[in-house]
C-alpha cells in the first residue's frame, strides 16, 4: 500500500509489515497474529470503543487460556504476574485515564504494554521513547521543512508524532520511560490526556486533531529513576499507576525464564538443551543475591544490578550464545557462572567483592553439600572472578 509522506491515514501494519522471518524481533501483533485473529473471531463480549477484543479476551490473550475456559485452541501465557495487574491495566485503558506502569528495570513493563496495545488495537508500534533529548515535537507533530518551503504549511507537510497518529486512529499510543524526558515535555501530555485533542496553531483551518474513541496512552517508568524528572501532580492525576513488582516467586520466575529462553533459541535457530538443574542453579543464585541485597545496609554492599528476571534471562542468553558459538554446543554450569559474573560485575571493586564473598560464602558450601551442577558453577565463577580481578 502506498502512502504519501505525511499522510494521516493509519498505516495498516499487518499488511505493511515485512514477513516475520525478515524481522529480527517481530512486534507482538505480528508474532501472535494467528492467535489474535482467532480470538477476534470467537469474541462475543462487549467491546469498548473501537477495541478489537473485549476486555476478557485481552486478559485471556495475555495470561493464556486454561482448560476451564473451554476454548478449542490453547492460548499460551505471555506475561507472568499477578492476574489483578492485567485486569486493572485493561480496565484503566477502558476508562478515561492513561496507564502508567512503574517498576524496577526488567520486570516486564514494556512487554506488558506491548501486549496490551497489540491485543486492544493490533498496533504496538506507536511508541515514543522518552530520553533526555525528547522534545514536544516528538509528542505532538513536526514539519517536513522542505515541503513547507515548497508548498507552505499544511496538513500534508506536517509530520504527526506516534501519539498523534494514535489519536487519529483511536488506538493505543505508548510512551516508554516517561520519567527520562524533561518535565516540560511530560506536561505536553496533560492536555492530550484531558482535552483529548491537539491544536495546530500554525494552520488556519483544519487545525485541531481530535482523538477518536479508543485512544489511550500506556506509559512506562522506571522506579529507579525516581527523582530525576518527577511527574507533576497534574500529570500524575491523569494516569493510573500500576506498580509491577520484581517476580520473586520461584515457580513463575522459572516459567518466565523458560518461556523467554525458548523464544530466543527459536530466534537464533539454536538446538540446545537447557537442563532443569542448571535453571535451578540460576534461580537459586539470583534468589540468594536478592536476599543479600535486601539485607545490605549501604549501596556499596549491594550489587548495582536490580537482579530482575530480565537480568536472569540475559545471563542465560549470554551463556547459551557463548556455549553455542565458542563452546562445546552444550550449556555447562561453568559457562553459566562465567556469564553471571560477567553480567553482574559492573563496578570494580565493589561488585566483584560482593560476588567473591557470595561465591566463597554460599556457593562453596552448597557445592560441598549438594554437589551436582554447583561444583561446576563454583569452578566457573572462581575463574571468572579471577579473570576480572
Amino acid at each position: 500500500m502506498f502512502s504519501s509522506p505525511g499522510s494521516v491515514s493509519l498505516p495498516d501494519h499487518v499488511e505493511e509489515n515485512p514477513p516475520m522471518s525478515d524481522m529480527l524481533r517481530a512486534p507482538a501483533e505480528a508474532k501472535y497474529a494467528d492467535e489474535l485473529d482467532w480470538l477476534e473471531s470467537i469474541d462475543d463480549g462487549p467491546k469498548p470503543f473501537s477495541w478489537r477484543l473485549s476486555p476478557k479476551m485481552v486478559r485471556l490473550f495475555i495470561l493464556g487460556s486454561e482448560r476451564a475456559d473451554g476454548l478449542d485452541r490453547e492460548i499460551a501465557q505471555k506475561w507472568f504476574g499477578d492476574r489483578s495487574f492485567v485486569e486493572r491495566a485493561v480496565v484503566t485503558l477502558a476508562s478515561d485515564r492513561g496507564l502508567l506502569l512503574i517498576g524496577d528495570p526488567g520486570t516486564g513493563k514494556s512487554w506488558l504494554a506491548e501486549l496490551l496495545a497489540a491485543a486492544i488495537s493490533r498496533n504496538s508500534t506507536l511508541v515514543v521513547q522518552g530520553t533526555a533529548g525528547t522534545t514536544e515535537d516528538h509528542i505532538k507533530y513536526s514539519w517536513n521543512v522542505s515541503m513547507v518551503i515548497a508548498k507552505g504549511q499544511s496538513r500534508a507537510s506536517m509530520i504527526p508524532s506516534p501519539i498523534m497518529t494514535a489519536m487519529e486512529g483511536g488506538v493505543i499510543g505508548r510512551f516508554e520511560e516517561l520519567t527520562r524526558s524533561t518535565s516540560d515535555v511530560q506536561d505536553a501530555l496533560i492536555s492530550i490526556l484531558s482535552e483529548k485533542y491537539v491544536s495546530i496553531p500554525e494552520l488556519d483551518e483544519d487545525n485541531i486533531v481530535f482523538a477518536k474513541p479508543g485512544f489511550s496512552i500506556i506509559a512506562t517508568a522506571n522506579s529507579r529513576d525516581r527523582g530525576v524528572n518527577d511527574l507533576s501532580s497534574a500529570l500524575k492525576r491523569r494516569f493510573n499507576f500500576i506498580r509491577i513488582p520484581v517476580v520473586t516467586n520461584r515457580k513463575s520466575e522459572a516459567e518466565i525464564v523458560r518461556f523467554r529462553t525458548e523464544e530466543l533459541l527459536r530466534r537464533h535457530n539454536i538446538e540446545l538443551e537447557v537442563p532443569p538443574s542448571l535453571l535451578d542453579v540460576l534461580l537459586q543464585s539470583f534468589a540468594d543475591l536478592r536476599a543479600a541485597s535486601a539485607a545490605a545496609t549501604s549501596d556499596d554492599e549491594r550489587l548495582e544490578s536490580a537482579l530482575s528476571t530480565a537480568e536472569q534471562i540475559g545471563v542465560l542468553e549470554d551463556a547459551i550464545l557463548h556455549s553455542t558459538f565458542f563452546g562445546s554446543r552444550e550449556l555447562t554450569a561453568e559457562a553459566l557462572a562465567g556469564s553471571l559474573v560477567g553480567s553482574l560485575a559492573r563496578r570494580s571493586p565493589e561488585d566483584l567483592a560482593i560476588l567473591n564473598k557470595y561465591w566463597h560464602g554460599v556457593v562453596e558450601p552448597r557445592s560441598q553439600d549438594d554437589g551436582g551442577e554447583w561444583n561446576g558453577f563454583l569452578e566457573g565463577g572462581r575463574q571468572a572472578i579471577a579473570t576480572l580481578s
Partner: protein
Amino acid sequence: MTSPFAGLRAQLLGAAEALATGPAALPEILSGIVDDVDHMFREPLEIFPVCHHSPASALAMVRRLREKQPKVIYLELCEDLGPLLTELRNCRLPVALQAFASELEGFAKEEAPLSVIAPITEASAEYQAIAYALETPGVELVLVDRSTDHVFQWQSAEAPVPEDDADAEPEDDLHGDAVGVEIGDLRPRFAELEEHLLHHGRVRHWSEWWDQYVEQPLAHADHDTYRQVMVLIGSLFRRLTPAGTRRLATDEDRERYMWTRIREHLAAGGADRAECLYICGAFHAASRVPEAGSEPSAPDFEITPRTATTWLYGLIPSSHSAIEAQFGLAPGSVSIAAATWQKSITRSRLTPFALEGQKGGKKRVRKSLPAPVTGGEPVVDQLTGYLTGPAALGGLDEEELRGWCVDIVRLARRNGYLASTADAIAVFETSILLAGMRGRARPTPYDFQDAAVTCIEKDAVPGRRDVSRLCEILLGGDRIGQVGYAALPPLAREVYDRLAPLGLNLEYRTIQRALLDIAARPELAACSQLLWMLRYLLPDNAVRPIMGSRRLGEKHIQESWDLDLGRHQRTIIELGYEGVTVEQVLEQRLRRAAWDPKATAATALKAVEHSLLFLSSPRLTDELGGRAVELLAAERGVDEAPAVLRRIRRLLAHYRSTTPALPAWCERFVTAGYAHYCTLLPTAFVEEETGVRQVGAMLGFLFSMESLALSLGCDRTQLELAVRQCHPESAAKIALLWAARHQLGVLPLAELRERVDELLGNPLVVPAVPQYVSGFVQALEAVPRLVPFVVETLSKAFARLPDPVLLPWLPVLITTLKSQAAELVPVLTREAGRTFPGSLAALDTWTAPWTARPKSAVATSRPSSGAAGVLLAEHPATTEAVAALLRCAGEWSVAGGDAEGPAPVGLLTEHPETAEAVAALIGG
C-alpha cells in the same frame, strides 16, 4: 427409604463418568458428598453447620433459633471455657476467651506459659447461640469440645510456631503467643486445592472466594438450603483432605469427643433430641466416624483425664485484625464480614440476639420470641439448584458504591493523597468495569479496593497508610474489643481502682498524660508508687515516665507519665493470672529473678534495690540480700565485679543515711566480698580473659570497703598477701598493681612517677605506655588519691607520646571514658580544673605543678620553727619512736637560722616606731 438426593447423586455419577480421564476416586468423592448430606439429615439430633466469621451462618442461626427455640444447645467450644461466657456481657466485642497456665504439671516445663484463646465476634453464629441460650430462661448451653488441657495434650511437638511478623501493627499483637481455637474452621486442607479454587474463581484470596460463592448465595437462603450447602462444602473439603495427616486425626478425635459428651449429656439429663441443637463447624457436620451420632448404641470415645496443670480463665480484648493475623485470614476480611452482617440484619429486619447489657452494641428492645414453628416437612433436595445455578448475586447497590467512592477520596485526602472528586468518579467507573471483567454483576468490596488502589495510589505513599489499608478502614475498619471492669481479674480491677485518683479514663485507647503533683496532693504518692511498679512489670510502652525517676534516696514532688493502659489491657489481665495484687506479683518476679539458675550476685543486688524502691518489705529485702551473699560466695568469675561494686555502694549509702545500723546481710556481704575478692585477685590479675575494668572494680571493692570490712573482723594482711601474689603480665594490669601497691603504702608516689618517666623515656616501651595509662585510669575508682597523678600522667602522655602511638589509642580512651562516664569523668575533670589554668592568658605563664615541684617540696618540708620545734628538737625520743612505728626514716635538720628569728621580727625590733604608733592608735 429413598433418599431425596437420589437424582442429584445419579447426575453427579454421570458427570464423573463423562470425565472418564479423571482420577479413579472421582465417583466416590462425588457420590460421597451427597451421601454425607443425606447422612446428616438422618441424624435425629439437629446438626447446625457453621463457618467462622460468616455473616450468612449468623443470619441462618438467628432465623433457626427463632423458629425452633431449642432447649439444649451443644456448642463446639472447649468445655472448660463455659463459666466465662456470662462475663461476655460486661465486654465490648470482639474479645477472646482465654485459658492460661504458667505452672505446668504433665507438660514440658519450658513450654510455659500455655495459653489458649477463642475469639468471639458479634457477627458470628456462636455469639448468637450464646446470647440466645443465656438470655432465654430454661435453655441449657453445653460446651462439648475437648478441654484446653486436651488441646495441648493432643498438640504434636512439631506443630508450627506462629511466626513473628516484624511490621505487624500493634493491634495485630493483641493475642500474644496464645494458641487460637475457633468454631467452624472451614478451609481447603491442602494448598493446591485452595490455589485451584482461587484461580478458577478469579479471586485473590480465600475470604473473597467464600464471600462470592457461598456467603452471598446463602445470605437469604432458607434453613434447609443453608444446611445442605454447608455440609456439602464441609464434606467436599473433608473428602479432599490428605489422609493420615495429624490434623485430620485430631479433628476426628474431637468429633468422637464431642459426640461422646453429647451422648453423656443426653443420657444424664434425658433431654428430647428433637429439642436440641448441635452447633459445629461444617467440616465436623460431615463426620462419618463410627462414634458420631446421638444413638446411645454408638461406641464411646475414651476421654483421657486432664493433667494436673492448674488452668486460669479470663477474657482478653481482641480485635478484627488480631483475629485475621492469628488465623491467617486476608487483612480486612473479618471487618468486611462484620459490615456485611450489619447490612444484612438491617435489610432482613431480623432482630439478632444479644446479651443483656452488652457494651458497644445498639440498645435493643427485648421482645418475646414468637411461638416456635414445628417442622416436619420432608427433606427436599436444594443442592441441585445451588450447584447448577450461577452464583446469585444481589443487584448493584449503586448508592452504597457511590458512598464508598466519596468516602475513600475523603479519607485518602486526609491521609495526604492528592485525591479529588474526579478520582471518586474514576473509582466508581473502574469498580464496575473490574467487576464486569471478573464476571460479577456487582462490585464486591474487593473489586472496590482494587479500583481505589488503581485510581488513587501513585508512585509513593504520602502518609502512614496506603490506599488498600484505607479501604479496609472504610469498609468497617478494625474493631477492638474491651473487657469490662466486672469481667476483669482482681489484680486488674485493683490497678484501675488505685489509679482512679488520677482522674483519667484509662479505658481510652490513646496515650494519656498523667500529671502528679505529689507535693500539693499527697494522696497521689500511692499512684506514683503503683505506676513505678507497673513500669517494672509491664512492657516498655504501657506506662512511661516523662518526668521523674525512681532511685534510692530520691523523692519527687512532681512526676508526669504517659499511660497507655487501654492498649495493654491484655498484659494487665495476664498479670492477674500471676497473683491477686500487684505487690504480690512483683514479689514473685523479684524472687524469681534472684533464684533463677542463671542469677548472679549483681542480679540479686538489683532485685534488692528494686525491693527497696517498690516494696517496703524488710523481710523480702533481707531474703534477697541473703541470696546475694550466697551467690557472691559461689561465684567463680569476676565479670560482674563492676556492677556488684556500683550496687553495693549505692545500697550501703542508702542504709547509712536511713537506718541506724547496717542490716546483717550487708555486713555479711562486705566480709564475704572482701574475702572472696582477695582470694580471686591473684588469678584475676594474671588471667587474660579478665578485663582491666573488672580488676579495677575488685580493687575498688577491697579498698573502699576496707574500713568497714576491718571493723567487721577482716584481716588486712589477707589483702597485703593477695597483692603480693599478683604478677600481672599485661601493661594495664601492671599499672593497676602499682596503684594498688601505692594505696597500700608500699610504693611511694615519687617512685611511681619515676617509673612512668622511665617508660616514657625508653623508646622500646613507648608503644606500651598508653596501656599503662589505661590501667591508671581504671585505678581512679580504687585509689582516689591517685587522681592528681593520673591527670599528670595523662598530660605527660599527651605531651610526649609520638603521634603514631598516641592517635590510635585516643579512640580507646574516649570510649572507655564514655562507657564509664559516671564514675571516671567527674573525678578527672574536677582534678584537671584544679591543675590547669582557667583562662587563655594564664596559660602563657603556667608551668605544670609537677615540673615546678622539687623546689617547693624543699620549702614545705622544712620543719616549723618556734616553740614546738624547739621542744621536739630538745626531746627527740617521742618523735623518733613514732617515726620508727610509721617506718619513716628521717634525719633531724639543723635549724640554722632559727636563733636569729625570722626576718620580719628583726625588722620590727630595729624600727620600733611604726609598731608603737599602731599600739597607741588601738589603745594598747
